[in-house]
């Protein structure tokens, strides 16, 4: 299929490569920053656009991959759907559930496929944890804790630093884990959250969540954009007959350059595996496009994840738990 990449930052570039690996053709790269679009377009021999909203409706494009700031997702999805394009949208789906509903309605009305990239569902270590916990081999899960995060993403002035646009670590980063806990252990009952969302004297966000699931499981989820450096994921699942632990810092490969050039906005943790989780995500999405498979994450799942993050932020504001 002919693909337009909308938003040519780090994630846009990653999705372009994954799409290309799946046999899709990158025909158009759009970014309001023309230089970013041009740089990515050159790699794939694609056209360049500095107008994302018109690019999603461009002729000769079958599929759009949206990797822009979260508040732009809804208008881009609506425009793409109206133009009959299938859609890959980076997470978080939208800023709030109301926008998610509109996006789903637009896709359904236009009969286009809408996929949201909750890539943690494709991570090998999370699949291994889910399989082990669900197998019952070490009893039933009663409590789990997941911590995720690192340095605050984005340079000064970046949209990540505007909490109204990014939703902070809770909506942008912790949403991975909120989604995964629901994926592995079912629907949530209620959620409690404390979050910093500081801008002064330093910009940092730190979010601490306790979520009660309908099956009784308690999930403690920590999201951090408060670390001075790096990125780390830790998980622990306690069961009635044992326990599962994972720590990304305990990794098979470590490379330390003697000098460090300016890095990307966010360090994306990559396991040295034959097929990356992003590749698996794109392959599964492609089977759906071809009518031969169904993805493990739906737009409604992505909306449920936004609802959980939204409830968490509401709890943080009111200082009380929020029922889901």
């Amino acid at each position, binding site marked *: 299929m002919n693909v337009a990449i909308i938003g040519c930052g780090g994630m846009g570039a990653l999705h372009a490569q994954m799409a290309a690996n799946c046999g899709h053709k990158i025909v158009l790269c759009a970014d309001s920053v023309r230089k970013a679009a041009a740089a990515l377009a050159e790699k794939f021999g694609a056209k360049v656009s500095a107008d994302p909203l018109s690019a999603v409706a461009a002729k000769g494009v079958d599929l759009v991959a949206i990797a822009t700031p979260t508040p732009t997702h809804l208008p881009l999805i609506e425009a793409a759907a109206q133009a009959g394009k299938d859609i890959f949208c980076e997470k978080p789906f939208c800023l709030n559930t109301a926008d998610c509903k509109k996006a789903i309605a637009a896709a359904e009305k236009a009969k286009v496929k809408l996929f949201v990239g909750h890539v943690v569902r494709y991570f090998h270590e999370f699949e291994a944890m889910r399989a082990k916990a669900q197998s019952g081999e*070490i*009893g*039933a*899960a*009663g*409590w789990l*804790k997941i*911590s995720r995060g690192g340095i605050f993403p984005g340079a000064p002035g970046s949209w990540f630093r505007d909490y109204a646009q990014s939703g902070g670590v809770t909506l942008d980063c912790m949403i991975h884990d909120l989604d995964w806990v629901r994926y592995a252990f079912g629907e949530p009952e*209620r959620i*409690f959250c*404390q*979050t*910093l969302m*500081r801008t002064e*004297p*330093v910009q*940092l966000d*730190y979010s*601490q969540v*306790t979520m*009660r699931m309908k099956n*009784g*499981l*308690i999930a*403690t989820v*920590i999201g*951090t954009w*408060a*670390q*001075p450096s790096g990125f780390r994921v830790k998980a622990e699942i*306690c*069961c*009635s*007959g*044992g*326990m599962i632990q994972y720590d990304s810092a305990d990794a098979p490969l470590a490379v330390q350059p003697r000098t460090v050039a300016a890095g990307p906005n966010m360090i994306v943790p990559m396991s040295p595996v034959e097929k990356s989780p992003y590749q698996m995500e794109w392959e599964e999405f492609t089977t759906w496009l071809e009518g031969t498979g169904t993805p493990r994450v739906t737009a409604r799942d992505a909306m449920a994840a936004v609802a959980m993050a939204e409830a968490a932020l509401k709890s943080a504001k009111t*200082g*009380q*738990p929020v029922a889901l």
Partner: protein
Amino acid sequence: MSTIKIGIMSFAHMHAFGYAMALKALPDVELTAIHDDDAKRGRAMAKQFGTRFVADQAAFLALDTQAVIITSENARHRGMVEAAAAAGKWILCEKPIAPTVEDAKAIVAACKKARVGLGTAFPCRYAQPLIAAKAQIDAGALGKVYAVTCTNHGQSPGGWFADEALSGGGATMDHTVHVADLLRWMLGKEITKVYCELGNQLHQDTLKTDDLGSVHMELEGGVQVSHIASWSRPKSFHTWGDVTMDFIGEKGVLSVDAFNQKITVFDDKLGRAVWAGWGDSLDDGLVADFVASVRERRDPAITGVDGLRATEVTTAAYKAFRTGRMVKV
């Protein structure tokens, strides 16, 4: 120096063992007698520590001791403290000082009335990694502290710990007070609000109490804290549990894992790896301060009021779960 004579009341709590060892290691201190309502246990301990067993509490308190360490079941602390205070003994009471705020207040009041020193056994304040962490915070390494993430995990102790009439509650009762005290001590702020989800799914068949509490706290000045109090470590785990605290501050972050001073031993006989700790003893510092407080006729460094404050937090956690609200302490 004159010899300080100390008795131990009950070995119901396993920490009594460490305190007895610490007493035996100190110069000019005599472990004069052991009292225990479980005579078999009391006699065995008296034999092990080379002292005598006194079955009758009144006779035990009539001995010429200056102080007692009370390591009975949580719900029995109050009766023993009141009797020991009335007998003029300096008191070191195991944590939690009591299962209820009412009992904790009565304990503090009884010692005040009798003009005896009262300490709460929070040995974590004598853990070198935590002392070093506090020194970093005090020196301003983090600037203003905004948030803390804590754990106090353990294995299910069973026995009276799981009998609410004696313990007052499960893992949350057992494993919230250490961290509540550490937060107060390290940050110099009181805990003002508490929220909690309780669980019992890890030991549903064997425990009637909670085996886990996911506790959120707010400290004076709005510091945000989450804490896991649990008996969640499986039998196959490489150690008993942990005390960890991650501080998020203006100028940096600090992570402390208080008992992570160990070697890992792979033991074919056990069929698993186990940690063997080499860090300094916590009990030695706690007990040495208590002995000094007896000698100097002062309160121990960690007072009965510290114990009361921690119990206020724990009882607020249970109340928060019952009401489904974040509650004031």
